[in-house]
């Protein structure tokens, strides 16, 4: 019997990154069975149905915004940016963990990424798709969004390349494209597996077309591995640069609280933080519903919890330094901003933010907490909420009271703001459900590699 069985005695103390007893065949069958099944589970219909309703709400709101105008949003003077930009930054940030897991953990040779990288990358794609809606729908004339791209036009004008808003266009489009390429490249061998395992004609044909005739040839794998590694190497600086460019939307502006060099690392750390929280938010129910606890093991959840804690500490440090620098600068406007943030009309949001983002996740230091799956899930949700509040505090609080008191104002989200936010979450979840139904949510060939490598290590 030459197929490697999982080594049966794990090193003492540490849980395994894959359940015992898996072979190449069992892995393939288990993961592809979820896709090729004739019986879609009931919870898939429920999840897809609810999220699809939210997508319809989103479409309705977008139609209303285009026909009635962005007055439906709560934006005013001085708060010209509201929920739309908050949501944009929040979603882009969430997307970053997927690329980090796929690309950076690959470069760091962390084997535990193998079972989570596929759906994490898918999560990135859907998060960036949800994010990409907002810069378009928040425009006064969204039908002119393509003016942001440099194209030969009859008006004889071109984009202003010195503006972070234009940099955003390139950064986000590049991020979406590269993530899509990376994700699809990783899918090709698994699509070949599905092509070979499928019994009905239509799936065989569709997967066959998408797999492009992949046959697992050794020289193909050789080039493939090289390309995959290079894409990972490219995606790593891309992740950092994209959220940096998004932070420049604020850092390049003059408003107190925004015009600070702390923003790029602060935003990137926050992005990784919220992204891992979202990966956990997705991974925990999925592994429960689909019975994948032997592939997405407790060790994975623990590792992700630890990364979350680490980035949470970086974010906490960022908050501290931001406040300290504002005080240390002696600039009365910066100092007022810090005071206003904490004790002004939006002060409650700031303290809720500290609670959700900083205080609650400190529970992760306790071993009993980060090994407890339901608690980990709740903490992940808390971080998701906290990061949204952080974006809100950054955007709204700095805008509503800047230099001139006569220009001060207040902002609150309208029903349309909330509906679009919920709708974007619906879009994200809907796409995720489509993904888990039609594509393998765990990378099959990488799991085979993992089993093989682990059995080699035992020799």
């Amino acid at each position, binding site marked *: 019997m*030459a*197929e490697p069985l999982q080594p049966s005695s794990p090193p003492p103390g540490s849980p395994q990154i894959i359940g015992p007893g898996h*072979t*190449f*065949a069992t892995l*393939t*069958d288990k993961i592809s069975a979820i896709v090729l099944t004739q019986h879609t589970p009931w919870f898939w219909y429920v999840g897809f149905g609810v999220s699809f309703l939210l997508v319809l709400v989103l479409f309705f709101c977008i139609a209303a915004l285009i026909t009635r105008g962005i007055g439906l949003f709560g934006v005013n003077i001085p708060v010209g940016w509201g929920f739309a930009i908050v949501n944009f930054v929040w979603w882009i940030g969430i997307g970053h963990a997927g690329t980090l897991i796929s690309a950076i953990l690959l470069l760091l040779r962390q084997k535990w990424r193998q079972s989570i990288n596929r759906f994490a990358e898918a999560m990135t794609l859907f998060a960036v798709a949800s994010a990409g809606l907002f810069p378009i729908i928040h425009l006064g004339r969204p039908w002119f969004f393509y003016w942001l791209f*440099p194209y030969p036009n009859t008006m004889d004008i*071109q*984009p*202003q*390349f*010195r503006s972070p808003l*234009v*940099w955003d266009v*390139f*950064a986000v489009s*590049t991020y979406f*494209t*590269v993530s899509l*390429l990376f994700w*699809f*490249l990783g899918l090709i*061998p698994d699509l070949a*597996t599905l*092509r*070979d*395992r499928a019994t009905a004609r239509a799936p065989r044909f569709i997967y*066959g*077309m998408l797999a*492009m*005739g*992949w*046959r*697992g*040839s*050794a*020289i*193909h*794998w*050789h*080039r*493939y*591995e*090289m*390309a995959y590694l*290079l*894409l990972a190497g*490219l995606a790593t*600086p*891309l992740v950092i*640069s*994209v959220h940096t*460019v998004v932070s*420049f939307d604020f850092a390049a502006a003059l408003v107190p609280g925004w015009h600070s060099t702390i923003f790029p690392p602060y935003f990137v750390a926050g992005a990784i933080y919220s992204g891992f929280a979202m990966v956990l938010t997705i991974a925990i129910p999925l592994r429960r519903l689909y019975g994948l606890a032997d592939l997405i093991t407790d060790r994975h959840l623990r590792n992700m919890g630890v990364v979350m804690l680490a980035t949470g500490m970086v974010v906490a440090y960022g908050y501290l330094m931001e406040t300290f620098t504002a005080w240390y600068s002696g600039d009365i406007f910066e100092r007022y901003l810090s005071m206003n943030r904490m004790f002004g009309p939006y002060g409650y949001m700031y303290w809720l933010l500290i609670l959700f983002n900083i205080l609650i996740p400190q529970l992760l230091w306790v071993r009993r907490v980060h090994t407890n799956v339901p608690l980990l899930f709740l903490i992940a949700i808390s971080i998701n909420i906290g990061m949204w509040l952080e974006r809100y505090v950054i955007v709204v609080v700095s805008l509503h009271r800047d230099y001139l008191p006569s220009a001060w104002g207040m902002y609150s989200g309208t029903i349309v703001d909330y509906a679009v936010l919920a709708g974007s979450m619906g879009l994200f979840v809907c796409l995720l459900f489509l993904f888990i139904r039609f594509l393998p949510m765990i990378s099959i*060939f*990488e799991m*085979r*590699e993992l089993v*093989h490598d682990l059995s080699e290590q035992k020799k």
Partner: protein
Amino acid sequence: MATLPIHGLMAEFHSPEALLHAAERAHRQGFKRMDAYTPFPIEGLAEAMDLHDRRVPLIVLLGGIAGCLGGFFLQYWLAVIDYPLNVGGRPLNSWPAFIPVTFEMTILFAALSAFLGVLALNGLPMPYHPVFNVEQFELASRNRFFLCIEADDPTFDRDGTWKFLESLGPDGVYQVDR
């Protein structure tokens, strides 16, 4: 004795180690035109069959350079020549401000080159290939490992190669029709 032209002969193995040894022995035997098919990449397999390809990194590098130069000169041309804006007399060639877009274009073109390059070099999409004619080959994407010695190898001889493949201890030997 095959009267139809065949693509080659294929041996099936149930472990990557067995395939690797078989590939090494086949290479020592002098076969040049052969390929192995596996459900996941096996380290050392391509080298054992003397298959090398260093073109992917080169393609990515060239793509990245093209993106970098293209991105920068796009901005330069648009901001300095085609649509110059006099903003307080500031320099038109504001190259520090051009860096983010240049960087993103570098990554974008490098990534596109990597993806398209690997597909092009592998000859994909290729919906048909003779190896798919072997029924057991569908396990190549599950848990079996195949070594195929192609008929256009100079030392290929249907019966002799068949016996050689059998001597490697495979689970099965199959003829691959065109």
